């Protein structure tokens, strides 16, 4: 069969658009970690295939997805892929990619950025471009001395690979061993002293001091109490259980500053009794986090109903304990703050969402019908897509509702899925009629909702390119990098 050039072109554009939507959706939620329904290996194989496929076929767009709000794991992965294969690029493309990569590295947390660059080393790639990017990244670090202490091994390996010159005493510190000399730089000198003096130990970052304390057999409770002032906000959250076990009460956390999903995860880690006692405080923290989140990414919605899954599968895995449930809780708080009128329907039903635990079967059809009866403008379903009571009930309700009861499309239904389903190469769908969006952090809900129209398949490749171009502009501006040249 022969096809005219236009038809072929249109078909190619459609396929490109669909592939890219699948890829972006996967990149919103997949972290390569074990999930409830699939193991870590299946996840890794699945996401690696997607990266290879998209990079091989649509390299230009692949680079631009860095700006689309994909999660840290995938952003780092894209950086590595781009740096490790650049032989056949023309100079303009190479420059544009470079800018995106630089911006992406600056947007990543330091350990992830270092790991992404070290992955390039593991691929056996060392060229002028990679070295220039590493040089740029290191010069953009606010405090390289601090990095040399906290990420000592990573920085050392990176320098070993790229042969870059380090300022001041850093070169000697990393390569000649700290025992050989005294340092003029205060932080390096503290690190040296910490090997001998307790006082100096507590001046170091927590992760560094922790190892030394263990080697020196310092009592855990004493250590936690004295290192408390040096802890970062995330470390504080993470160490709550350990501190409680050791009887240390100095690790006060400021819930008013933590991110939405973090607050939800922390809340779910508490036993029911404590949750009941601190109910008002926790609710305020959750609402505060939602409001803060909306201040950064505004979202104004009308009449909204949410169907939220707290079934047993939201237990997640040892790698991501209760993450799906935390995302549901976060989305609940975020939608309550963002909409004029809000109703939530949990499955299985629960009176107080703050007391929710992962338990019971997934019946999405019933709560979805309840939600639709309220005639909202937007219905958000947060679930891992394994709808088993009855199987496929929610997808069927959505399909029939759209076809028979709401042909004009007054009500929009969106399915938010925090779980990457490895065999499906994306978040598991409820049915063909409902757009499914991957989501790792509840904070990214505005981004996900903006992407919903692409996931629904209503928009073309040109629209998608437009969308990406706009995101790229913002992304580069935020990272203080010059705009792309190839956009014309």
């Amino acid at each position: 069969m022969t096809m005219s050039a236009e038809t072929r072109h249109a078909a190619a554009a459609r396929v490109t658009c669909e592939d890219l939507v699948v890829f972006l959706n996967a990149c919103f939620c997949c972290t390569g970690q074990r999930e409830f329904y699939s193991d870590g290996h299946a996840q890794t194989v699945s996401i690696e295939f997607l990266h290879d496929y998209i990079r091989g076929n649509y390299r230009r767009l692949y680079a631009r997805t860095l700006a689309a709000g994909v999660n840290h794991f995938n952003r780092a992965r894209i950086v590595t892929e781009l740096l490790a294969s650049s032989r056949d690029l023309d100079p303009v493309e190479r420059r544009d990619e470079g800018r995106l990569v630089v911006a992406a590295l600056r947007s990543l947390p330091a350990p992830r950025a270092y790991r992404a660059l070290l992955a390039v080393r593991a691929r056996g790639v060392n060229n002028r471009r990679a070295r220039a990017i590493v040089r740029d990244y290191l010069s953009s670090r606010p405090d390289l001395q601090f990095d040399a202490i906290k990420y000592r091994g990573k920085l050392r390996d990176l320098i070993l690979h790229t042969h870059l010159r380090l300022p001041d005493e850093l070169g000697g510190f990393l390569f000649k061993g700290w025992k050989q000399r005294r340092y003029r730089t205060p932080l390096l000198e503290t690190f040296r002293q910490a090997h001998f003096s307790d006082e100096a130990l507590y001046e170091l970052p927590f992760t560094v001091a922790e190892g030394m304390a263990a080697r020196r057999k310092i009592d855990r409770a004493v250590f936690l109490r004295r290192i408390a002032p040096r802890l970062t906000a995330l470390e504080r959250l993470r160490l709550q259980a350990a501190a409680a076990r050791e009887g240390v009460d100095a690790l006060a956390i400021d819930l008013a500053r933590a991110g939405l999903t973090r607050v939800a995860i922390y809340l779910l880690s508490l036993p029911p009794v404590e949750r009941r006692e601190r109910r008002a405080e926790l609710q305020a923290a959750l609402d505060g986090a939602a409001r803060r989140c909306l201040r950064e990414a505004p979202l104004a919605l009308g009449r909204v109903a949410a169907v939220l899954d707290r079934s047993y599968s939201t237990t997640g895995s040892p790698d991501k304990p209760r993450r799906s449930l935390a995302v549901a809780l976060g989305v609940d708080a975020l939608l309550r703050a963002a909409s004029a009128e809000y109703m939530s329907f949990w499955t299985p039903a629960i009176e107080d969402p703050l007391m929710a635990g992962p338990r019971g079967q997934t019946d999405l059809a019933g709560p979805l019908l309840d939600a639709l009866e309220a005639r909202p403008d937007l219905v958000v379903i947060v679930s891992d897509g394994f709808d088993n009571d009855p199987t496929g009930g929610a997808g069927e309700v959505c399909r029939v509702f759209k076809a028979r009861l709401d042909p004009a499309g007054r009500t929009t239904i969106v399915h938010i899925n925090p779980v990457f389903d490895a065999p499906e190469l994306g978040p598991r769908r409820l049915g063909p009629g409902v757009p499914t969006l991957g989501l790792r952090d509840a904070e990214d809900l505005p981004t996900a909702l903006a992407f919903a129209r692409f996931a629904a398949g209503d928009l073309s490749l040109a629209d998608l390119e437009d969308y990406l171009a706009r995101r790229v502009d913002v992304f580069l501006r935020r990272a203080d990098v010059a705009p792309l040249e190839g956009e014309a």
Partner: protein
Amino acid sequence: MKFDETSQGLGLRGLQIAAAQAVGAVRLVPLLKEHVREDLRLGTHAFGDERPRAVGVRGQADRPDVAYCSYLPHAYVLRWSSDGTAVAARGAALSDKQLGLRDVGGVRVLHRMIRQEGPGALRFLPLHLAMEGFLSLHFGGPDVAWSEYSRQALSHGLSPRRESAVLGSYVHGLEDAVRMFEIHERQVGALVFVADALAAMVVFPHPDDYRALHRSLVRDFFGELVYQYAILYDDVPAHRVAVREAEIADLAGLRAAVARARADWAEFSGDMAGRVLREPLRWQTLRQVGPFRLRRFMSALRPDEDNHIGEAIVRDSGELEYCKTFRLSAAQVRRAYLLEKLAQNLWDLARTAEALGVEVPALLVRLLNAGFGYLLKEHVLKNLPTGTV
């Protein structure tokens, strides 16, 4: 094993079937209890080590030396009250001594299949109760000393009689399916299908007992066919809801259609387990405690259909409180079927052959193939035609 009653299946009085959950080739169908009562609870006592255990069997006064040997991962401890007051589940609280565990020559010996542990508590060995009944079927051997039977068969009966089964964790995909299963709020049991063949039915007295014992499903044993099906089949089609959109006019109609689909699938799941739930079963009562009867059963043996054995606790009102079934493999059915036919015809080979519609040599071949050669004298088995069944 002597049967004292025949009934039309286990039935599902007091239980509801809920929506099936399928993972790979395994489909688990939850059974929910309509009215949860507190007067019967089941706890588990796990035996830590993996040494084989012998169980001294009582009830055969003429044969005190009969022992039942198997891998026994755990015992169940039943607690009940006759007046309907609540009792607590108690399992691991019992010491080895209380459970009657002794070490004899490296084999740990339990005393009796069912044992009273003080007032209101009963220890028994799940599934082994049913399997012991199956093995003891016509265990005494020929009642009439026909000349064809060997001296061994006449003096010791079928002893030693043995059957094999597969541990649940060796059934491919069962462990994953059990892990990923989402337990319902009032769930007390499950129908286990492997490649849509009924592998087992499990019911416990209380939802909390089920929640505690759900994972122990992989420590039960399963028939050979179940093991093979699990390897041969990758997955089973999900019981998906389908609504005819032309019939839907409003949301209430849609809700009703979903409810109808759910009910249809539940009924279908019940039909898939029809052999245990509706077809005739033969029962033997083992123990009566308060208003509860502990019994074991066997389906009418038909070599061309699936056959199940099991044990159950039934309340006086007919509600099923506890149940576990085991699907016999084809070879096991054949063996039991031959024994039953022989017993019906007073172990006369000629009459049995006539009842089965075959010649005597063909019957002998069937006995030999079924593993009962040791019952017959050597010269009887000589010069048998090959290939006839």
